[in-house]
């Protein structure tokens, strides 16, 4: 074996060695895609209109209450999300100069348009985007917090594009998709509110009881009615004060616990400033009901028995899971806007496992048949090609492990396809060598020209497939992207093994022989 061959052998050993090293141990190094590991893929849309509405409502409320402090009586009008404005009703005798001054101070940036009895305030032009952007960002953070506490390994939670209101969530290995979905998308907006009427079994009788119309500072909120055994037997309607006593944002901690009957509850502690507020309120309202409202639904409305300082407990008809999840959501914070599902893909763990087993079976069967064929058709040269093929697969898997590429179900198909197409390069070379032998060239010359002539063709042929794989990668999502990656790496690896490795194997086989009479091909 001459020096040149030794160098080639060294290079091959290094490449294969690196591949094996980055591949070992395979169970840890090859990352399965969602479709193989099981898990959940969600594309969520943040309804940023909610955030705009909240911003408008907040501003209107602030304006009205500050104006009242300064002796100007206004009432809140309506918020218009499309026109990005809110209105306040301004009585005829109002000091308009003073109102403008108050508006400049407390809703800065808004342009005020005075009208007959109604003033319209328009959102500052650049605020629209800022508010929406903030809503998406803080949704992202809240979802991160929730998933983080839920303990999912290697989650992907990211915004789809810089300015988009879509969020991509990928959680591998989740075995209870329904629970995770609820955990991610529920707003978890918690408020403690004063009960001023009800509960009554339907909206109409509640309306009649309070004299036919809902006062402007109150709202009707439904809630579950529980039977004696705790099961839900219907819906109750409550009349609640709109202004919350405290809200979920003012909680410091929340933990699942049990009450004296073993029923799951959520214990909470408020932040210091909210503790005073809460203590004062509960101290002065002993004997009245206080509603605990989650996402605009009353979960329970206990009677206040004593002054509640900074700590308390939320009771409701919870299962253990529900109490656990509620505590988790309260810790992680509320979402600033509702979320809708645009896309959901759930793969149960058993389906993914089944796919892996079948994919591997198909790969092994395909590999064996192809190797057998090559051996029969090209004899010793076929063996050469088979060695190259095995190394090709090792390098392919090693490269995937090295780059952290994920193996998906179509990706497995890509590996299998690579097996079929990898021998193509060898076939091109061998057919060419046979032709050269036929026209009477010596074995060495035939091998040389065979490789040289076939190389251009191999390059052209593989580049076209690479182009297709590139476009596939560009447009593809999830599993399809995985396929494109596998195919691309497979093509590159096959050029290396079929051209370089095979050639070196011939060099080794022919080394040290003065005259080579025949080639087993």
């Amino acid at each position: 074996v001459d020096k040149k061959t030794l160098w080639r052998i060294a290079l091959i050993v290094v490449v294969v060695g690196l591949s094996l090293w980055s591949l070992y141990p395979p169970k840890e190094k090859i990352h399965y895609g969602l479709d193989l590991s099981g898990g959940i893929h969600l594309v969520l849309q943040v309804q940023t209109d909610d955030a705009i509405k909240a911003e408008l409502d907040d501003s209107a409320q602030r304006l009205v209450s500050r104006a009242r402090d300064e002796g100007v009586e206004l009432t809140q009008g309506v918020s218009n999300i499309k026109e990005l404005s809110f209105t306040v009703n301004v009585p005829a005798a109002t000091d308009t100069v003073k109102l403008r001054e108050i508006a400049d101070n407390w809703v800065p940036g808004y342009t005020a348009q005075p009208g007959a009895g109604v003033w319209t305030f328009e959102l500052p032009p650049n605020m629209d985007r800022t508010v929406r952007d903030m809503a998406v960002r803080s949704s992202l953070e809240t979802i991160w917090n929730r998933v983080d506490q839920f303990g999912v390994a290697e989650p992907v939670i990211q915004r789809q594009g810089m300015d988009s209101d879509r969020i991509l969530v990928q959680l591998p290995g989740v075995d209870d998709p329904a629970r995770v979905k609820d955990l991610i998308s529920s707003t978890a907006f918690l408020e403690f509110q004063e009960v001023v009427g009800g509960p009554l079994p339907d909206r109409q009788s509640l309306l009649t009881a309070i004299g036919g119309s809902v006062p402007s500072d109150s709202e009707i909120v439904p809630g579950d009615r529980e039977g004696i055994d705790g099961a839900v037997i219907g819906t109750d309607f409550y009349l609640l004060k709109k202004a919350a006593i405290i809200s979920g944002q003012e909680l410091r901690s929340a933990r699942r616990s049990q009450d004296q009957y073993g029923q799951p509850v959520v214990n909470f502690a408020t932040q210091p400033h909210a503790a005073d507020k809460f203590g004062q309120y509960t101290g002065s309202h002993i004997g009245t009901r206080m509603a605990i409202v989650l996402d605009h639904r009353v979960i329970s409305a206990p009677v206040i028995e004593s002054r509640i300082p900074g700590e308390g407990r939320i009771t409701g008809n919870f299962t253990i899971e529900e109490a656990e999840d509620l505590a988790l959501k309260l810790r992680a914070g509320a979402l600033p806007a509702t979320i809708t599902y645009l896309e959901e893909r759930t793969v149960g763990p058993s389906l993914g496992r089944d796919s892996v087993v079948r994919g591997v079976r198909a790969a092994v069967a395909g590999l064996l048949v192809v190797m057998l064929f090559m051996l029969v058709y090209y004899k010793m040269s076929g063996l050469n090609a088979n060695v190259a093929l095995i190394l090709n697969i090792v390098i392919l898997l090693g490269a995937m492990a090295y780059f952290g590429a994920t193996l998906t179900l179509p990706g497995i198909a890509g590996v299998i396809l690579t097996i079929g197409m990898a021998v193509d390069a060898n076939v091109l070379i061998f057919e060419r060598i046979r032709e050269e032998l036929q026209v009477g060239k010596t074995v060495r010359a035939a091998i040389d020209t065979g490789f040289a002539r076939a190389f251009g063709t191999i390059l052209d042929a593989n580049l076209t497939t690479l182009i297709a794989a590139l476009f596939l990668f560009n447009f593809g999502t999830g599993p399809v992207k995985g396929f494109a990656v596998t195919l691309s790496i497979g093509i590159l690896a096959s050029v290396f093994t079929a051209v370089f490795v095979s050639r070196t194997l011939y060099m080794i086989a022919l080394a040290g022989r003065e005259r080579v009479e025949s080639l087993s091909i």
Partner: protein
Amino acid sequence: MRIIGDTNFPFLSYRRIAITISILVIVAGLAYEFLGHGLNLGIDFVGGTQITVKFREQPDLADLRAAIAGLDLGSPLIQRFDEPEKHEIMIRVENPSGVEGDFTTPILELLHAKFNSAIGNRFDLNTKGSLALVDMLAAADPDGVGGDMEGRSAYYEPMAEAVLDFRKQQGIFTSLDQLDAITGLSDPVRAYLQKTAAVGDFALLGADSVGPAVGKDLQRKAQLAIIFSILGMLVYIWIRFQLPYGIGAVVALFHDVLITLTALAVTQREFNLPTVAALLTLVGYSVNDTVVVFDRVRENLRLQRGEDLEKVMDASINQTLSRTIITSGTTLLVVISLFIFGGDVINTFAFVLLVGIIVGTYSSVFIASPVALAMNGLLVKRRERRRAAGKR
């Protein structure tokens, strides 16, 4: 060993027949696609919800159909999935038009209400996850570990994982007795589960739900990917060879894609994202095959200047014929293996490649070269006409 020796088929002289047959097949296919059922577009592109569940026992499909119809989601499709003895059912519904949202949960809730009413409040081993199981065991504490919740959760976690691993392998618990087969459970825990848990009638294998916005997005992306990759091929071959060859290869490509689409329409197999991936792979493969022939034509033209192009092409096709057949053969072998062993999920993917490789091999011999020849003829004629005009 040799399959094909030195052949000398006059392939190009069959070009009129071959092209006529291909045109007939494509026209019939297009007619079928537009007038008949058309392509069976999956939810990836039209939006909708598709749920696969595994049942303990074969459920009554008519019953299931009646239950789903009550949901008022457009045209439900319910069919068996995979091998019948696996009791796997696929439910596919259209989402209400223009509405985004979670359509998986209502279907699962409906199935739960219909099949699992006997369970009541008991813990369902077939739908609940490991975290819920940890919570439940930690609260009940059958082993009497004591201490705080966190400590107990850590203690019961491996047992919960063992239970879920079993479900992962089997797909579904068919009875509570199967708990006996799980090693790693303490006896009190096993007894506790046998007493308080239940096995529901079904387990979720997979769910896909695509809203209209994403569906439209995916459709557009798929079209762009196919168009751009074909354009990419045209440009590459144009640069590496000449325009007539580029056109020949691209015409062969369209030919392959159209016939494969026809096969998809006739078999009414679902057209989804993996199908597009398979089509793009086919694009790469088909050009690959054609390029090998063109490469040989180019080489032979250099060796034998002035030789008639048709003769050179025929010779080149013959010279590369054994390679064409062997490569198609080995690729077909693995694709067949994929088709047989790959399972339902990958079956259509393999089908596209199966049809595509056969058609692609045919077209690289009978379509690509004749079209390149004709295009070259046109080019030569135009050049001569120009030259003639210039002389005058």
